[in-house]
């Protein structure tokens, strides 16, 4: 477990304010009473987090390298059809195991890289695989550009939506590297947690080596 990640707490007041600011003023009176039934993350332990398994072909027992990796500067996909794809955890998954809707959920995740051949910290030098959100409305990821004690890059995430009791919400991730990038085959460990909770979930993935100089 990783306990030393930087935590970003979204308070009930911040979340209410943010939600209110995003709404047309005319709707506020009708919407506001509904907040009375919503429990905010940090006030209830109903939200659990998982990291989705990377895609594996269980017919051949081989990793599926299907998740494209992007250039962090210009957003272009890197590599070609062989390289520049990873077998990586595609989603953070939130499940509301409580009895009340939960809003304002936030947390952190970290990404570590390790070379396959040498079993050493990635030759990319600075754990250069990064991640951001990938299209889910209300899901945002911020790269803190800091590292945890294991050398993994630390990111904060926030989901602005509401998770109903029993609901499972997938928060898709998009991976990128910053130019220039070169690495032999490597593995990635993604470890995620929800603010205010001690437990963390982790999954690893694997990437074929590629260079991205041009």
């Amino acid at each position: 477990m990783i306990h030393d990640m930087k935590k970003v707490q979204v308070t009930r007041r911040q979340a209410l304010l943010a939600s209110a600011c995003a709404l047309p003023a005319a709707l506020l009176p009708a919407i506001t009473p509904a907040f009375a039934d919503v429990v905010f993350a940090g006030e209830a332990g109903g939200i659990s987090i998982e990291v989705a398994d990377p895609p594996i072909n269980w017919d051949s027992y081989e990793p599926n390298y299907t998740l494209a990796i992007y250039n962090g500067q210009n957003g272009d996909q890197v590599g070609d059809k062989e390289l520049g794809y990873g077998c990586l955890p595609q989603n953070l998954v939130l499940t509301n195991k409580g009895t009340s809707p939960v809003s304002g959920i936030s947390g952190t995740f970290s990404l570590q890289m390790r070379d396959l051949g040498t079993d050493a910290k990635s030759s990319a030098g600075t754990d250069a695989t990064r991640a951001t959100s990938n299209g889910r409305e209300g899901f945002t990821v911020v790269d803190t550009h800091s590292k945890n004690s294991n050398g993994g890059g630390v990111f904060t995430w926030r989901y602005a939506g509401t998770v109903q009791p029993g609901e499972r919400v997938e928060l898709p991730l998009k991976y990128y590297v910053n130019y220039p990038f070169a690495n032999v085959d490597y593995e990635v460990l993604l470890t995620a947690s929800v603010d205010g909770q001690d437990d963390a979930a982790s999954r690893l993935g694997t990437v074929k080596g590629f260079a991205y100089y041009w």
Partner: protein
Amino acid sequence: MNIGIIGSGYGGAVAALRLAEQGYDVDVIEMGVDWETMPKKNGLVFTKMTAPNERSMWFKTKTQMPFGRLFDIPLIDKNIGWGAGVLDVENFGFMNVYLGHGVGGGSLVNGGMAVVPRQSYFRKILPQIDAGEMFAKYFPRANDTLGVAEPPRDIIGASKYYNFARVAANQAVKAGFQTAFVPNVYDWDYMRQESFNNVERSALNGQVIFGNDHGKKTLPKTYWAKAKATGKVHLKPLTEVLSITQNPDNTFTLKTKTIDFDGRVLKNEELTYDRLIMAAGSIGTSKLLVRAKNTGTIKNLPNETGKRWGPNGNVMVARNMGTATGVYQAGIPAMGVTNWDDSPNSVFAEIAPFPAGIELKTGLYLAITENPTLGEFTWNGADQSVGLNWTQQMSAPSVAAAKAFMEKMNAANRGTSNRSDLFEDNKAFSDYFSYHPLGGMIIGEATDLNGEVKGVPNLFVMDGSLIPGRIGVNPFVTITALAERNIDKLISARKFG
């Protein structure tokens, strides 16, 4: 009520915990080390397979690995110091049996594969036991207390440490066999962190058969931790029971010898108990009771004492895989291949790692087969020793099943073949050792249906010797579940007062 338990493996751990929870004080006599109290040496309590020392094996000057050769050269075994190490091998003529010594017994040295047998096979082997009750109540209880977990798909599917398992599973599928993810007691989240060097490595650093410093939920981390917390359990480590004598009042007096780690005798004692639970494992329990029967120190031991023993059909096989299996291999197995249908051709093959640190393109399998042949323990009056009558011929059904299984695998995967340069006498199928000794005091035969020895009140058996010779999978979950069942029923029957 004065209760003694001989042995601290699965059966002893269950008995101690459940009795202590009921308020009984129990003595637990264990011939090996209490490794939880052992100081580290060179930063480790246990040793890596590639760097054994006196902690690795029980009073040996050289390791005796399951296979000691590579490329026909004796490269594997290494000279070691003399001490009360964790792994033992008992040599009975043709059959060598691997055992764990120390508080936790076999849990200290096994691969942690926690497999519940097929219910149909359980019914075939132990028809005298209510399978419905076992599968509804006692197997779940055992799994829960042991901390058993399915291997996670990301580790098995994507980690470099399980490429060996993926290659073997791929070849098995091509041969038309079923593959299975095999539950284990290893902490998989710990393994993820190990793989990124965030925590001290254990299974990913060549630790398994000589013990694991981290990650594995051995009995000292589960049952014994709970039992010790009751304050009712009194461990007597490094203490061997030499003989058991039944007294006229149906109590039992044990002659014991306590040693230090180097083997120096510290004291000889006689300990007397109102109730005695035998949990020294199939070999330990059978040897003590066969001795007691033949020297007459326990009257009325049944004729079934020491009978119906088997090696769980164990056959180890190595294959040239024709492709890389990986320089990095976890010490903990997590997959199996099977064609099991309860027939004599049935094989459940654990895909075992071969963490040699170099690319050998080799797959290793521990095949568990359905071999109906059973042996028995023997008494040699001349030297007052207990033997085992297992012969090469008795392993032949296991070898035949494993051979047919592997030949089908080789035929479906061009460029693959069996290796014969690892085992003794250039055997491709190792028929001369077992990790899974079972039998000797069969439930319902040598004991009643709750494990009390027939004709000997107050003497109970609580280990793998209750199971007749095989169970179709790695047996420790079955041993644990059966012990949970038996102690439950014995406590309910007020056998301990």
